[in-house]
């Protein structure tokens, strides 16, 4: 473990926070956790938290002077700062572009999965209409891409090994059962998820099975 002054304003139940905890664990980074009192609670509306994160989203990552409020940006930052070898965010421009493409997909279309999940579990009003159908469409895109990658002899979303694109996508896939999306439609995603489970440093989150 490397000792660094990282603070993650976290909530254990959120897929967005799990992305960041997962990369921190994969990188072997030590960090402090501060729980934001939400689900239930209005901890994200407290003035001190809004000073840090005006939009009131969770998580927030503080790394010295750097304060980040979007999980995909946190993944990029952590990879660039703490993985100089470029394993998680490769320097090759083509691979790097593909990683970014999937990061934006994770932050965009795939957000429907978290909407459907929080609505199904906790009765949180979804931000989109028919989040379940939108999540299923996003999963079909993921499955389709992995089928193509498999035919090319590749196992992960971009490049030759796991990248932060995989880390950004994994939580939504691993937590799909929480909103009743069956994985039988997505066999490549299941195989891929097992590979992520097998990575050195992998950690679970509530709802993610310890043993697959």
């Amino acid at each position, binding site marked *: 473990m490397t000792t660094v002054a990282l603070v993650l304003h976290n909530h254990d*139940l959120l897929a967005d926070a799990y992305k960041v905890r997962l990369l921190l664990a994969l990188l072997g980074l030590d960090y402090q956790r501060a729980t934001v009192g939400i689900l239930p*609670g209005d901890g994200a509306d407290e003035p001190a938290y809004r000073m840090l994160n005006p939009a009131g989203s969770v998580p927030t990552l503080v790394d010295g002077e750097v304060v980040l409020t979007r999980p995909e940006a946190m993944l990029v930052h952590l990879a660039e700062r703490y993985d100089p070898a470029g394993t998680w965010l490769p320097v090759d421009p083509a691979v790097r572009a593909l990683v970014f493409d999937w990061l934006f997909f994770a932050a965009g279309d795939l957000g429907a999965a978290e909407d459907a999940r929080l609505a199904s579990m906790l009765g949180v009003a979804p931000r989109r209409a028919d989040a379940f159908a939108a999540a299923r469409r996003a999963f079909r895109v993921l499955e389709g891409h992995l089928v193509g990658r498999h035919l090319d002899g590749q196992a992960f979303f971009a490049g030759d090994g796991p990248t932060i694109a995989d880390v950004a996508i994994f939580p939504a896939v691993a937590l799909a059962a929480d909103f009743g999306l069956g994985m039988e439609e997505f066999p490549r995603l299941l195989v891929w998820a097992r590979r992520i489970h097998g990575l050195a440093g992998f950690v679970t989150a509530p709802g993610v099975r310890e043993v697959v």
Partner: protein
Amino acid sequence: MTLTTDRAALDDWYVVGISADVTPQAPRRTRLLGQDIDVTRGPDGRAVVRMVGGAGDGLLCRSEERYGFVWTTFGTPGRGIFPLDEAAEPDRRLVTCGMVEVAASGLRLVENFLDMAHFPFVHTDILGALDKPEVEQYQAEIRADVDEVWATNCRFWQPLAAATSTGGQTSHYVYRVVTPFNVLLYKTCPEAPERFDAIALFIQPVEADRSIAYPLMVVIDSVNADADIVMFQQKIFLQDRMILENQRPRTLPLDPRAEIPTRADLSSVAYRRWLKTKSLGYGTYEYAGA
């Protein structure tokens, strides 16, 4: 959905909301035993529960506030809301831990709450460890004098028994089922080992195979913020949820031939037997293999 006609289910008290969340500005539309209801607060500040739709549309229901929750009944319960003496102890914190929706009968939720055998596999490295899966012998009984089910002398090795834990402990548990849909447990408190934390699970049976679960912690904890206590409990319950939603049938079979219990299921056997004596049908499964 229509209101059930199951007498045993109607004649009981149920949680239908968290007191702190019920305000005149934010009435809560929800469903109990198949009947839609509104939960709100009147001008005098008291909680008001009213039926919406169906034969009883507009009817006011009896309601009370206790232990941080709004309770209601559609029938005539044989007794008041059960006592929970620990809630009155001054050094305890009473923390309502939100609500979680589960696509399973509330009776399944109670049975899962009573089960220790799943700790190592579902709550790995928190409430149990994979290398210590044994459920030691314990006792379970129907206590006729109070009409409750108790399981006593329960012990289990736990790596992280509570939000206050700093290491593993052998937790001692006592389980107490107070009504078919309300259950609580007492377990060794890491901060005061001679006393017990009380953890309750109150269930709102929305439909026969859908529930809303409300965990309540009545704990001695001078360290953690409410947010951490809530998150700890929510985490545990969401781990249970993924198992609960995969159980088939979603309702609970009471016929002893329907499933094969093991010694570790003693409390479940007592619970199912107790439910049969009450003639409760709501949330149960009609076993066709007779």
